């Protein structure tokens, strides 16, 4: 249990700056998820906290101690790797107890801790097996057990679920969340999967090209994305995004899309835009629905268009249609059948649209 502080931390690979002067404060017992596309520097950041990569610039502080010069073994962190990284020549029991044995702990104390961890993770029956005799999910559990027995200050997870199939991944995700509630330790978790990030995190850090785009709770990121990247990265299906230009039309600002559609700028955003500004205009799938299957929002914009494709998923139906030449997706929660080729009136809820400046990528 400890907080972790990163101060202006940078990492270079040759001339490439993989992590660019990031500042981050992880509070005690927090479940923090680092998420971003591959190559965004999230894994490098995690490995610097673990001590597996050198910190080229800046400082990392775990608890009260600056750990820059400390070996991994001196940092009291444990790490769960993507490929499990179990020791193939040891049984599950030996894998779990290895770190304690290295630390010079008494045999019966080790057994006690191992039994406790095995109990938490439900792997008691495999203790005498070798990793090769376990399934992927079981191996991942052993890897987590190996991290738990040490009672570290910080848990580090490096994409622990990427190697599992979809069903197992959902199951293990829940278990990781439960584990955090049981062992109450600071967790730093790296993933490229935004669903994992949303479901697990207390706070999410979104990274791109070595910098932090936004830090916030899952709902904050979803409701108030700071940048266009965050807006499209968080949420599934991803936010519809249309490039357009701001024009003044009878004292009010409107957006003209590349295909010439005129859409009014929402009232709340009238003051922040200016004539001629290039923007991206975004809205989520659930904020544009076929008029006949939903309620008309108070501030809306209507558009008649043909359905390209519909994906009925039971609780919801995804409808793909065009705004000019750009395909957008609409999500309706009414269990009505929509067929490709149907012509529908769509209503866009203007109050729930997001405007991003094209130059800076920042939200307006």
């Amino acid at each position, binding site marked *: 249990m400890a907080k972790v502080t990163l101060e202006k931390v940078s990492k270079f690979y040759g001339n490439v700056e993989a992590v660019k002067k990031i500042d981050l404060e992880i509070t005690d017992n927090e479940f923090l998820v680092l998420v971003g596309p591959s190559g965004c520097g999230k894994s490098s950041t995690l490995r610097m906290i*673990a*001590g*597996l990569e050198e910190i080229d610039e800046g400082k990392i502080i775990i608890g009260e101690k600056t750990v820059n010069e400390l*070996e*991994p*073994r001196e940092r009291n*962190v*444990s*790490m769960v*790797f993507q*490929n*499990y*990284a*179990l*020791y*193939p*020549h040891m049984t599950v029991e030996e894998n779990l107890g*290895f*770190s304690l044995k*290295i*630390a010079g702990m008494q045999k019966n104390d080790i057994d006690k801790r191992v039994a406790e961890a095995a109990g938490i993770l439900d792997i008691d029956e495999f203790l005498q097996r*070798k*990793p*090769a*005799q376990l399934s992927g999910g079981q191996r991942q559990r052993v890897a987590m057990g*190996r991290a738990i027995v*040490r009672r570290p200050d910080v848990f*580090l997870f490096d994409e622990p679920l990427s190697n599992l199939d979809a069903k197992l991944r959902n199951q293990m995700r829940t278990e990781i969340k439960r584990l955090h509630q049981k062992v109450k330790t600071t967790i730093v978790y790296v993933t490229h999967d935004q669903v994992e990030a949303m479901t697990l995190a207390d706070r999410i850090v979104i990274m791109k090209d070595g910098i932090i785009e936004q830090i916030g709770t899952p709902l904050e990121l979803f409701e108030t994305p700071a940048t266009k990247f965050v807006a499209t990265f968080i949420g599934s299906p991803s936010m519809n995004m249309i490039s357009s230009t701001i024009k003044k039309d009878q004292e009010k600002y409107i957006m003209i899309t590349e295909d010439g559609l005129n859409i009014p700028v929402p009232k709340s955003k009238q003051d922040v835009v200016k004539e001629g500004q290039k923007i991206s205009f975004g809205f989520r799938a659930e904020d544009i629905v076929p008029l006949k299957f939903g309620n008309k929002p108070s501030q809306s914009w209507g558009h008649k268009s043909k359905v390209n494709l519909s994906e009925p998923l039971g609780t919801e139906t995804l409808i793909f249609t065009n705004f000019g030449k750009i395909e957008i997706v609409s999500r309706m929660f009414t269990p009505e059948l929509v067929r490709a080729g149907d012509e529908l009136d769509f209503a866009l809820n203007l109050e729930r649209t997001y405007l991003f400046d094209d130059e800076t990528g920042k939200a307006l």
Partner: protein
Amino acid sequence: MKKFLNGPWVLLLPTVIVLACVVFLPLLISLWTSFTPFKLTRPDTLYKFVGFRNYERLFGNYDFWVAFGRTVLFLTIALNLELVFGLGIALLINKITYAQKTLRTLMMFPMMFSPILVGFQWKYIFNDNIGLLNNFLREFGISPKPWLVDTFLANMSIMAAEIWSSTSVFAILLLAGLMGIPKDPIEAAKVDGCNSWQVFKNITLPFLMPFIFIAMTIRSLDVARAYDIVQMMTGGGPAKRTELLWTLISRTGYVDAKMGLANAMSYISIFLSIAFTFFFFYKLMEARKILSYD
């Protein structure tokens, strides 16, 4: 007959004939000669069957068993030293990031020389009067040593030559092993609290064991038939002080012309190689099982 000509056997026939000519037939003839008092100078002795007389004589032959024992000792010491040096070199080369390929190639230079030349080269280094080493010692006022004459020193000198020429076999095989070890378990061990030595002992070494045993197998076969370097440096002498199995066998067969006896010696010696190969293969299988391969 027609069935035979169309069957798979006919396709295997060329291989079978070649193998018979170059392997089975010579083996059979040599086995036969070991039951005869065959002397190269008296061809008619080839047809005189004497049963196990050659073998019986060998069991009481002091010189043979001394050479046998010396070969085992030589093999044990040389293999272990080569392992230690080879592992050291492999670990060092694995660490460096700059000019690794160049060093890997340089490392294999000794393997590129003919063993006969290696023998010559070391013979001159260790020579009593004009040798490099003794001249070097004289420069520093140390009295020269009889490197190739003294029993202990002569055996050590031969071993030095053998180790110099073949340590790179170990180094290259172990380096291949090191480069194939997955990175994750090593990083996991570092985070789990291991220092470098503990990582090596608990993770790297178990992963390396199969490679060590493969190298051991190859080199045990090599060293058990050591002949050329010894023959060049001392010829088994002086006074049989450095006699190994194959210098003894070749002298018995070609100098003394007692081919029957020499072949009997060879058959006994082959058991030595088989025993070592069997032992190392068994260990190899075990090491692989520990790692849950197969």
